[in-house]
């Protein structure tokens, strides 16, 4: 496995698929030449059982079953390839054509395709095959044409998706003609998904072509493909069941080759799927008895790393006193979010977390603290890019989750309390909001809703990871006010992660500046305000952040607006 790590191309699927495909190709070339006599010569040895001479027996005309199955490879592969090419090329032409046409035509054409795709393609192929008189060519044409709609739809959808990207917009603005846009931008970026789809089309065409022959409307004797062989063997299934084996195995192997190749290509295209499976050594909890210090949170020498890979957090230590608001600031990749999630005990499964001490209250976050206590004592508030709430559940279910699961409240009571809490954070019509789905609420409302739950659960610690980053300034202002209020009224300690120096300066008691997995400076808001910083990185960061300057300038002419 490890030896395959590099390249990513030579996965077992890819090698298996290629090897199998190559064998079938060789067979398709060689078998009809070498085995034509046993495969087609009529002999007196009809319907024989398997023997050394005839490994799979003979059919009712005395021909060797194995030889026939192998010889049929050529015709089957040729037909399948033909149908695939027809479907793929036809589909691409139609799909790109639809994309290039006017919006009105496009809309109608897509509706038409949708109807066509819904229709069982085999029935469609059946009728076409019947019209064209059964035979090799008509089967290929029928299955090929039947495959066009779905390929065309996918091509059109892909093209539509790519054409909304900004590089296509820009090209259009630059005056690049649609056909050139299709050739330079759309097709190259579709190539990979389409190639994967083509392998699927190949597998499907194989199945359907064989099906057509199998029910007698495809290849006609004396030609034969896998499907027809299977059809013939079905008639003698009671007298000679082994005749089924040859064509069955060949169909399966051919399909498998296409499948494996498709899988391998898809895995390559999708980095998520190719994420390497690494065995994570379980870190035993460090048996540190909670010391007698007053800190609510104590982190000593926290390390977060990709197993066998880079260290993302490198020895972070911090404390949070009860009721204290501590900020972690830094740019992307500084490790601030990883640190905060480790404190909350919510690190990603594929990461390794180690520390000398990592505790919240008297819970050892490296071990497995009581779930219910975690739920009650630590509240987590994330950035809201519109996806922090489950889109298919109403707000009420989600906002009352902690109350019902960990505080043992009934539905009615939990709702009542949350409704009141929502009103307190200035959400209008709170009862109605609970019945709505998350997408009906604005980002600011969702964040305030999240904060409102802490009014009821009264956690000891709130871990907030960039909670206002996705919000507009005026909305951010309102949300920050609510954080301040919670802090004032309930004395909740907070670990507040942000990249915005202005925000943390306004809200927090202490500010920790992070860079590349380490804390480089501890600051107070006053120091930040007066630019009293030591570390060059903090200095650079402060210089990089533009601030609104409204101080009167002597030179500025006093123009009235």
């Amino acid at each position: 496995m490890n030896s395959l790590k590099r390249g990513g191309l030579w996965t077992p699927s890819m090698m298996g698929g290629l090897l199998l495909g190559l064998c079938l190709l060789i067979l398709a070339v060689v078998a009809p030449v070498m085995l034509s006599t046993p495969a087609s010569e009529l002999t007196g040895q009809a319907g024989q059982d398997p023997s050394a001479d005839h490994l799979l027996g003979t059919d009712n005309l005395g021909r060797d079953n194995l030889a026939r199955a192998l010889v049929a490879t050529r015709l089957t592969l040729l037909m399948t390839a033909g149908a695939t090419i027809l479907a793929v090329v036809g589909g691409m032409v139609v799909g790109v054509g639809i994309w290039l046409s006017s919006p009105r035509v496009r809309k109608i054409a897509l509706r038409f395709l949708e109807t066509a795709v819904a229709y069982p393609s085999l029935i469609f192929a059946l009728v076409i095959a019947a019209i064209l008189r059964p035979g090799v060519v008509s089967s290929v044409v029928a299955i090929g044409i039947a495959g066009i709609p779905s390929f065309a739809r996918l091509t059109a959808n892909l093209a539509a998706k790519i054409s909304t990207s900004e590089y296509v917009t820009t090209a259009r603005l630059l005056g690049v003609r649609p056909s050139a846009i299709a050739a330079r931008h759309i097709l190259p970026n579709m190539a990979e998904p389409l190639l994967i789809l083509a392998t699927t089309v190949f597998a499907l065409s194989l199945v359907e072509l064989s099906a057509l022959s199998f029910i007698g409307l495809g290849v006609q004797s004396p030609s034969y493909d896998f499907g027809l062989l299977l059809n013939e063997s079905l008639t003698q299934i009671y007298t000679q069941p082994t005749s089924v084996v040859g064509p069955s195995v060949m169909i399966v192997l051919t399909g498998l080759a296409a499948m494996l190749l498709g899988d391998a290509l898809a895995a390559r295209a999708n980095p998520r799927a190719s994420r390497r499976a690494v065995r994570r050594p379980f870190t035993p909890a460090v048996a540190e008895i909670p010391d007698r210090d007053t800190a609510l949170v104590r982190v000593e020498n926290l390390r977060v790393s990709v197993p066998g890979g880079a260290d993302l957090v490198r020895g972070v230590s911090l404390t949070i006193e009860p009721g204290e608001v501590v900020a972690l600031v830094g740019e992307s990749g500084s490790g601030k979010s990883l640190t905060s999630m480790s404190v909350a005990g919510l690190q990603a499964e594929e990461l390794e977390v180690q520390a000398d001490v990592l505790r919240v209250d008297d819970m050892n976050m490296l071990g497995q603290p009581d779930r219910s206590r975690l739920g009650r004592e630590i509240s987590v508030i994330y950035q809201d890019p519109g996806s922090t709430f489950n889109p298919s559940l109403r707000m009420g279910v989600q906002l009352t989750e902690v109350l019902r699961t960990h505080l043992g409240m009934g539905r009615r009571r939990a709702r009542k309390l949350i409704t009141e809490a929502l009103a307190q954070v200035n959400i209008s019509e709170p009862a109605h909001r609970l019945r709505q789905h998350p997408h009906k609420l604005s980002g600011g409302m969702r964040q305030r809703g999240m904060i409102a739950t802490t009014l009821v659960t009264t956690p000891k610690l709130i871990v907030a990871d960039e909670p206002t980053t996705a919000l507009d300034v005026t909305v951010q202002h309102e949300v920050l006010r609510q954080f301040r209020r919670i802090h004032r009224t309930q004395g909740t300690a907070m670990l507040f992660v942000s990249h915005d120096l202005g925000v943390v300066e306004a809200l927090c008691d202490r500010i920790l500046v992070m860079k590349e997995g380490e804390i480089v400076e501890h600051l107070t808001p006053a120091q930040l305000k007066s630019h009293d910083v030591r570390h060059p990185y903090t200095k650079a960061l402060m210089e990089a952040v533009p601030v609104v300057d409204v101080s009167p300038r002597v030179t500025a002419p006093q123009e009235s607006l």
Partner: protein
Amino acid sequence: MSASIVHQESQPVAAPPTTGLRERPWLRFSLRRLGGLVLSFVLLVGVTFVIVPLIPGDPAIAAAGQEASGAQIEYIREELGLDQPLYGQFLDYVGGLFTLDLGTSFTSGEDVASVILARLPFTAELAVLAISLVLIISVPVGMLVAYLTHGGRRPWLDHLFNFVTSLVYSVPQYVMATLLVVVFAVGLGLFPAAGAENLSSLVLPTLALMLLPTCVVSRVVRRETAVVLDQDYIRTARGWRIGQVRLFGRYVLPNVITTTLTLSGLILAAQLGGAIVIETVFAWPGLGQGIVDAILSRDYPVIRGTILILGLMATVIIILVDVILAIIDPRTMEAEA
């Protein structure tokens, strides 16, 4: 035929009052679906009319028999309305649809509607049973595998699952059917190889029809679950420290089910095609067998009627799935508005 359309019409429109009509998206959504249904049906009527007579061979000869005299054939041609100009035949055909009259079979002289009605239950029985089993098995299996392998854990299970599903996936349904017959009917003699006499004769066709989609759907469920598990809202729910059972039942499942259902609708529609082949293997007296026989004997009205019914069923299934999805996740509906 028209009666069944009207019935479909009233369904989506009648549904909203339970949730209240104040939300206009419902109306829009229903109208669009209805429009889609009507459009599909019009397309189907047009296409079947044009395409079917293209099937080579003279139906009059087929109906009259090979030994019939010229006069007999002409008589039958007139009887079947085949001497009329094409538009006349089309008007007859469309007019017939409104009175549920699909014509009479060229070969048996029976009413096409009743021929189809006699066969429809067999196909429906098979398809519905198969798809139910597919969902019952593949949703839990797919979710379980996704859970167990999430974050790169248990790579062996990952490989095993991929291998098994790929293998079964590569076996076409008729090959599967044939193998099942060889093993269970011929070899072990446990179930009948053909016919539709009793419950036990349902076993092998159902198995043959469901194995492949089970693999497809469980792969999709597994992939979708993996995607959902990486979503922000799952992270949020983890932050609430709810138990795994509730996490999966309440937070993961609804989001996995949308894709699964969409796919299942398409698969169920495709099952109607798969059923043709399966029915041939097991001599199952459903629509599939019916259409193959009709094509071989050039029985236009039966071919047309069957294609129409199968197409209508496919469309209705897909629309039904859309409606169910809209109920589960209103965003799918509002996205259109």
